[in-house]
């Protein structure tokens, strides 16, 4: 057994030990079977996102991959042909930061599994804690969100996030990239640190001490590597082992920070330590735009549905933030995480729509919830746009997903047809039946 595989098993056991005693909840939607023959969507308005809209287009996918897209496309023999009669095809929407699959009911602690105890948990893998039967997952994908980053939180080093596809029997089926990034909660600069509990972000160590603890962790991980190289019998340590690919620049760090003092301090830290950084939150990112652009640090905007942080800020500071980053040439994508987490992932397209109202071009807004998250999280070879060779992870809608009344009509994830029912539709039909019985 390889070292990596031993490590993986050890980590899995560690996480399972902390796994939540789940309520007896499991959604009844049956995951889609693997694609068995080519499917051709014809007479469609195709929105590749990576290129111009194709009117009256055809898209063919086979064995889970897109094999042809355009106006003049031959339909393979034996293909199932679906005539869309002018309906729209989009790549799956992508929520770039969420706790989807890691939480069921916010106020019930036993249903929450996004956090481990302690400050330094670089070895924690969110992937292995994802609950494929979460009722929240079908609700999110009903509105076209087919991909999400499931991220751990809390402490200083929260653990590793995973890009998941929102369909599958097990977390192994769902995972697109099991180790996507290491999450660091940047200490707040104020003395006393961030507030834990009510109203505050997850408690983390105070400013200078927190930064010092992070610095020591990376120094220890380097010393550990040197010790292991010098003496292969030096005892293994899961935490320092799991920081090696971060130090080698193979795994990026996603640093959570909103205030400019946090952002600049985090950027300086990442540079000193040689880390590949992605910023999340980023309320003050426009003030640091030149720095972020120069060092090519992308930003996962922590939602547009946010209040101004300071009394003197413009009322539309959060609404206009994506447009400001776009104008400044900073790479970014939009998350709907702002405040309510997994249960509100379905509202991701409206965060993007708000940005359009405040200056972001509509094509950019769509990219900010499809292609840009895929690029920033390193999975654009698989998802994010409708292109030959990419996964057939896409949906059909009767209009623009940024417009609220638009209905998502059907969806595929890697060519597997997704059941678009969910808890809400089930209850809707149940109580429609109640009232129709009364007539």
């Amino acid at each position, binding site marked *: 057994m390889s070292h990596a595989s031993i490590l993986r098993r050890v980590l899995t056991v560690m996480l399972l030990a902390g796994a939540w005693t789940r309520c007896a909840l499991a959604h009844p939607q049956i995951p889609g079977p693997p694609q068995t023959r080519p499917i051709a969507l014809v007479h469609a308005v195709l929105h590749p996102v990576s290129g111009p809209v194709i009117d009256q287009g055809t898209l063919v996918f086979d064995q889970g991959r897109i094999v042809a897209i355009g106006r003049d496309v031959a339909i393979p023999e034996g293909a199932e042909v679906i005539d869309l009669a002018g309906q729209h095809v989009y790549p799956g929407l992508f929520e770039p930061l969420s706790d989807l699959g890691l939480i069921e009911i916010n106020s019930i602690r036993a249903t929450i599994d996004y956090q481990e105890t302690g400050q330094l948990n670089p070895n924690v893998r969110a992937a292995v804690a994802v609950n494929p039967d979460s009722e929240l997952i079908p609700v999110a994908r009903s509105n076209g969100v087919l991909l999400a980053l499931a991220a751990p939180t809390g402490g200083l080093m929260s653990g590793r996030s995973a890009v998941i596809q929102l369909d599958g029997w097990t977390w192994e089926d769902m995972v697109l990239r099991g180790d996507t990034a290491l999450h660091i909660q940047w200490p707040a600069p104020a003395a006393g640190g961030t507030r834990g509990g009510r109203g505050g972000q997850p408690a983390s160590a105070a400013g200078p001490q927190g930064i010092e603890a992070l610095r020591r962790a990376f120094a220890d991980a380097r010393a550990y590597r040197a010790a292991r190289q010098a003496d292969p019998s030096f005892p293994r340590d899961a935490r320092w082992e799991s920081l090696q690919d971060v130090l080698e620049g193979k795994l990026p760090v996603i640093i959570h920070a909103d205030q400019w003092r946090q952002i600049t301090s985090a950027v300086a830290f990442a540079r000193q330590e040689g880390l590949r950084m992605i910023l999340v939150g980023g309320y003050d990112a426009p003030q640091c735009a030149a720095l972020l652009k120069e060092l090519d640090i992308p930003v996962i905007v922590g939602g547009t549905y946010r209040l101004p942080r300071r009394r003197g800020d413009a009322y539309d500071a959060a609404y206009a933030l994506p447009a400001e980053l776009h104008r400044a040439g900073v790479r970014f994508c939009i998350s709907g995480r702002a405040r309510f987490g997994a249960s509100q992932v379905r509202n991701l397209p409206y965060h993007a729509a708000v940005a359009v109202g405040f200056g972001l071009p509509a094509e950019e807004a769509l990219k900010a919830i499809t292609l840009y998250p895929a690029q920033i999280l390193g999975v654009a070879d698989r998802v994010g746009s409708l292109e030959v060779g990419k996964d057939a992870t896409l949906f059909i809608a009767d209009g623009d997903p*940024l417009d609220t009344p638009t209905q998502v009509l059907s969806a595929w994830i890697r060519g597997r047809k997704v059941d678009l029912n969910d808890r809400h539709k089930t209850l809707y039909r149940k109580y429609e039946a109640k009232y129709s019985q009364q007539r």
Partner: protein
Amino acid sequence: MEALVEVLRQQRWVHCHSYRQDEILALIRVFDDFGVTIGSLQHILEGYKVADAMARHGATGSSFADWWAYKIEVFDAIPYNGALMHRQGVIVSFNSDDQELGRHLNHEAAKAIKYGGVPREEALKFVTLNPARQLRIDRWVGSLEVGKDADFVIWSGDPLAPRSRCEQTWIDGRKYFDREEDLRLRATQAQMRATLIRKVLQSGQAMQPASERQPEEWELWPRHDEACHDGDEEHAGHFIQDHKHD
């Protein structure tokens, strides 16, 4: 006691916080016994389950558009709630007791179109005329009619679309907000702020002591909802940066 007497005489309306169908029915039955009509049921996330009983009683419903799953009593909350109550003849509005969500109720109203197919004009009433009717102030506000207060908004586009912008807000015939003016004033205010900061710096006075901390986002916009204390302090959830959401 005086207040209760007013309730019994139908001189004071009761607007009742509620979630589940059992408690909603229980309250309706108590009020039925006393021959008193409920003003509105607030939150009313399971109103869709007993919308027939609400309509018969004459209670109106003021709901969240699509919040759910933050606690067990809202695990059956569905975004079709507004549509189902509306179709049973209940006067429906969408509200929020959250300071951030409260500033885009127009986006919330659009969800009644999406979930359950409420006609556009009716969905707009969920955040204009219907709340006025629920509060019994529709003689003055809630629609654009001769004789009513000059309270209105000028939008850049469809008021229910998240990509539309509020351009102007008028209350009682007075302009309270004008986006162009707001943008113009920003430059002046930034300049004044910079001047003040420069003066402070030049004064040589001591800086903010290290013990003093910047207020958190949620502390800047305080609100208090007496009906909503359910001891959730220790469960401030994951990405929930605001202090409450019920």
